[in-house]
């Protein structure tokens, strides 16, 4: 019996192993890890880690929820299945991406936390699903995403189009199932990075993820962004125009880090960098579960020399192609951990950095804590006109006046092609302003809108209320014209991996998202220590009216003799004090009879008289 049990166990484990092997060997799940590095014209080093997991199974189908997960993180899969999520895009960011200095990133993200979710059309209550999803994501990534309730989210009409494959049924494009929310004050720290790394097949034990040591990144990075993007992809299409017959899913986990080598080197003109000093360790062997593991370094216009030299160079893009150094990590790290160094033969000269074709900035205007305005500036330096969608999500405690909206291109007022405006309601929903604008070639457009800062209930202020309240970044969505395309790296819709893009599959519909700065607004604050005093004082004022009116409507004006007089409490006290005074004075007189002259006596008497007079007057008044 014992033998048969052991045999059974061995048999089971062997079949399991075989099954896993089959899964890995087969094309059901595919994991790719990639690192893209680029030295920006300002001398900063931009590193974009991207971990892509693709699976041909439609995990959103509830009957599949017991399916066997190999590479795809089960915790994400369960959340997606539970809330019927079609597409999800989440970012947690510390710092601001400097578009004018660094160009466009692969993955744009606003400061703070952002969630964009599109639900399947089978979801009955989108707002409820949204609240459930954000709470689940908050638990998954240890962040305060649960604060993104329905009071903080909007339904964008022109921004955030579908990222993945679209079609009928569960691949819909209906905007009513789209939600967008932003938490500008959310911080990104170790407690978010650690659970995020645990979603990877190799966790943080092997592969490029080993480079993501929180200590180094937190210490040196000027910009740090975590991303989690999920979208449906198509594995096989039906007949012509039949749509996708077997949708799969693609999860992209990305980290963008910008590090200033000058700070690491502690020398102003030394912009040399290497992987080890930036991330604490050289390139470690690839994750064994990864299909490919590649490092791309953009060496277009670079002045540095890479050591060791890359496996090969790759030219990508039409017109002015970009030159990429490619390191295949599986081959590169055959002999263990290896560092990649970039050495500049000459010290760096800081010149004027050529700004990317479309720039978007925003600031707050006005002084004081009463009212102000938001001014957004869009600079289009393309040689052709472009169409942009501008999305502004303003919290309800800033009251926006739509009639003050002014759009001017180089000083000339322009009318937006489309305007979406949903006014906010206190404690219910934020203000949603979306504009579709046509921008002329080589023009600067300013959008200005006035707002009022409301005073909140004293329990509604965030901690450190005098620091101010944040307004999340605005989003500008546009398609770059041909001459501007070279500036942006836009991933292909069908496969988000960098290799797919760099090996010749240029995105057919390069949509670019640009985020503006977060705004800090100082709203008026009450005195938080005063609730009791204020309640007492305000009630006193009400009583001030109530008392006399009550008296005069319930009593009659009559003449009374002083001994029958009804005294108020205050009157009684005053009378008591006054009645004590003459006896005290009399005692004093007795003790020092010689020193008091007749004149003094007279004075004292007269003062007593005046006292009693005031007494009677007081009582009269009362």
């Amino acid at each position: 019996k014992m033998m048969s049990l052991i045999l059974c166990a061995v048999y089971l484990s062997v079949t399991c192993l075989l099954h896993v092997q089959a899964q890995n060997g087969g094309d059901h799940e595919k994991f790719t890890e990639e690192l893209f590095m680029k030295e920006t014209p300002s001398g900063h080093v931009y590193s974009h880690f991207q971990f892509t997991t693709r699976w041909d199974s439609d995990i959103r189908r509830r009957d599949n929820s017991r399916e066997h997960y190999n590479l795809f993180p089960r915790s994400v899969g369960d959340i997606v299945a539970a809330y019927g999520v079609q597409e999800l895009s989440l970012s947690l960011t510390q710092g601001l991406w400097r578009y004018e200095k660094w160009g466009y990133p692969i993955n744009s993200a606003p400061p703070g936390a952002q969630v964009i979710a599109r639900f399947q059309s089978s979801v009955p209550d989108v707002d409820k699903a949204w609240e459930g999803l954000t709470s689940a994501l908050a638990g998954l990534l240890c962040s305060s995403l649960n604060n993104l309730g329905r009071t903080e989210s909007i339904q964008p009409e022109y921004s955030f189009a579908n990222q993945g494959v679209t079609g009928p049924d569960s691949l819909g494009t209906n905007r009513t199932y789209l939600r967008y929310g932003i938490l500008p004050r959310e911080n990104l720290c170790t407690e978010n990075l650690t659970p995020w790394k645990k979603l990877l097949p190799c966790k943080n034990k092997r592969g490029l993820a080993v480079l993501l040591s929180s200590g180094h990144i937190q210490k040196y990075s000027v910009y740090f962004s975590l991303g989690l993007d999920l979208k449906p992809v198509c594995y096989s299409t039906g007949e012509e125009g039949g749509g996708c017959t077997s949708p799969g899913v693609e999860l992209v986990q990305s980290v963008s880090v910008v590090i200033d080598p000058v700070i690491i080197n502690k020398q102003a003109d030394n912009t040399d960098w290497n992987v080890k000093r930036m991330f604490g360790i050289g390139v470690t062997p690839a994750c064994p579960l990864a299909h490919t593991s590649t490092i791309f370094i953009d060496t277009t216009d670079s002045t540095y020399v890479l050591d060791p030299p890359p496996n090969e160079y790759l030219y990508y893009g039409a017109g002015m192609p970009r030159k990429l150094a490619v390191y295949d990590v599986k081959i590169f790290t055959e002999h263990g951990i290896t560092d990649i160094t970039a050495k500049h033969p000459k010290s760096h000269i800081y010149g004027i950095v050529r700004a990317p074709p479309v720039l978007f900035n925003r600031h707050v205007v006005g002084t004081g804590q009463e009212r102000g305005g938001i001014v957004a500036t869009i600079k289009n330096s393309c040689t052709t006109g472009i169409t942009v969608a501008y999305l502004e999500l303003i919290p309800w405690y800033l009251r926006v006046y739509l009639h003050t909206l002014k759009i001017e291109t180089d000083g000339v007022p322009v009318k937006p092609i489309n305007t979406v405006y949903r006014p906010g309601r206190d404690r219910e929903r934020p203000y949603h302003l979306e504009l579709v604008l046509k921008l002329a070639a080589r023009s600067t457009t300013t959008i200005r809108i006035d707002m009022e800062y409301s005073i909140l209930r004293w329990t509604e202020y965030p901690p450190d209320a005098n620091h101010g309240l944040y307004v999340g970044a605005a989003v500008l969505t546009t398609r770059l014209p041909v001459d501007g395309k070279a500036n942006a790296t836009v991933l292909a819709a069908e496969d988000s991996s960098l290799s797919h893009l760099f090996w010749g599959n240029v995105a057919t519909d390069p949509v670019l998202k640009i985020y503006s700065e977060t705004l800090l607004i100082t709203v008026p604050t009450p005195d938080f220590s005063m609730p009791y005093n204020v309640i007492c004082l305000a009630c006193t004022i009400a009583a001030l009216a109530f008392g006399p009116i009550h008296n005069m409507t319930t009593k009659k004006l009559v003449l009374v003799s002083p001994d029958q007089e009804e005294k108020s409490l205050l009157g009684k006290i005053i009378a008591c004090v006054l009645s004590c005074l003459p006896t005290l004075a009399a005692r004093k007189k007795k003790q020092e009879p010689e020193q008091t002259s007749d004149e003094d006596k007279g004075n004292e008497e007269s003062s007593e008289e005046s006292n009693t007079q005031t007494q009677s007057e007081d009582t009269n008044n009362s």
Partner: protein
Amino acid sequence: MGNVLLYVLGAAFRYSASGYEFLQLRPEISTPTNSWKRLIEGVHLNKMGLSPYDGVLFHETPIMLQLYTVMENILVHRSLLVFIVLDLLTCLLVSEAGYYGAALMLQQQKRIKGDVHPESGSLLHSSNLINVLPKHIAIFYLLNPFLILNCAARTTVVWNNFFLAAALLALTQNNRFLGTLAISIAAYETMYPIILIFPLTIHLATIEGQQGRSVTSSVVETMVYTLLWLSCLLGLSHQLSGGSWTFLQATYGFIVTVPELTPNMGIYWYFFTEMFEHFRSFFLGTFQLNLLMYCIPLSIRFWRSPLLLFGSFIGLISVFKSYPSLGDVGFFLSVLPFFPHLLPFFKQTISTAGLLVATTILAPVLWQLWIYNNSANANYYFAINLLYSSALIFIITDLLLAQVRRQFYLQHGYSVIDSMVNGNKMILQLK
């Protein structure tokens, strides 16, 4: 001639003050319920096809909204002219009411002349009142800085004051039709003036009672008229807002529940900012009832002088409404000349007047210190609000107490106060 000059002067003051556009944004003058900027925003949204009641900015009534949308050319583009003309018309109505009011008071006095103590003859109105009163009222109205600022800031209080003035005129003319209509419109606009129905009903019932009509039928008729007007106005609004009642929440709901805590000269904003969440509804109820509660006892006590009731109710509204503004107070102050006979019995004239002037000047100063210079905090501004409100309350209670005292002296004469009992002077007391 002098009168015309006065009106020209009033218009000139209003016109020159309107150059200061910041007046439209002052929290003391423009509140969420009457601000010109919000009215414009509502009209703008309405023209775009969005419902202004969907947001939290607009709190005017649907009729006002439609009026401003349809007649935008006149009411918005020539708003200053409209507001000045409206304010001058209001003044005309109030001074006309002064004329009829004086006539009314003289008539009443004739009736009670027999009961007046011989010593108190000097307390009686002189027959010249009928000539003097309209002039005094015009001076008080046209040169009232509160009303000048209010008109220059283009608040919709100007409209409300116009209807209040019409109601006052109707009361002095014993006109039920106009009176109930004006009070209904004013109440429809800002809700609180509904309590003015008390003085009107009492007055009409008294007058008609003297003519031999039953008091009950008179009261019922006034009530029916008011209800009719109100339901007409609400029905019309319902139609204008496309068959929806959402405007009720945005207008009266907003006034009653005080959701917006933008500072103003009242006591509500800071009180409900600092309120403990579980007591909010209790204190809301208490504060709103506080105003309503005064109506019945005051009506019973002062039913003989409906003008005084009308004036004191306007005063109480201007202190205890949820979003009070200078325009409301200005109207109350301009009605005070109706009671010159009570002036000798005021006890705290100088101190309250001083308090009112001081707080009006100090409020913007402390606002500046709090909001712009960051060297003061909300308590400073609220302290001014409290003093300002107490000054107004003192004026109102003084006014009412003066009436009580005047009645006493008219009945008993002066010398009774000097009479001695057991060698002690007698004391006048409410008992």
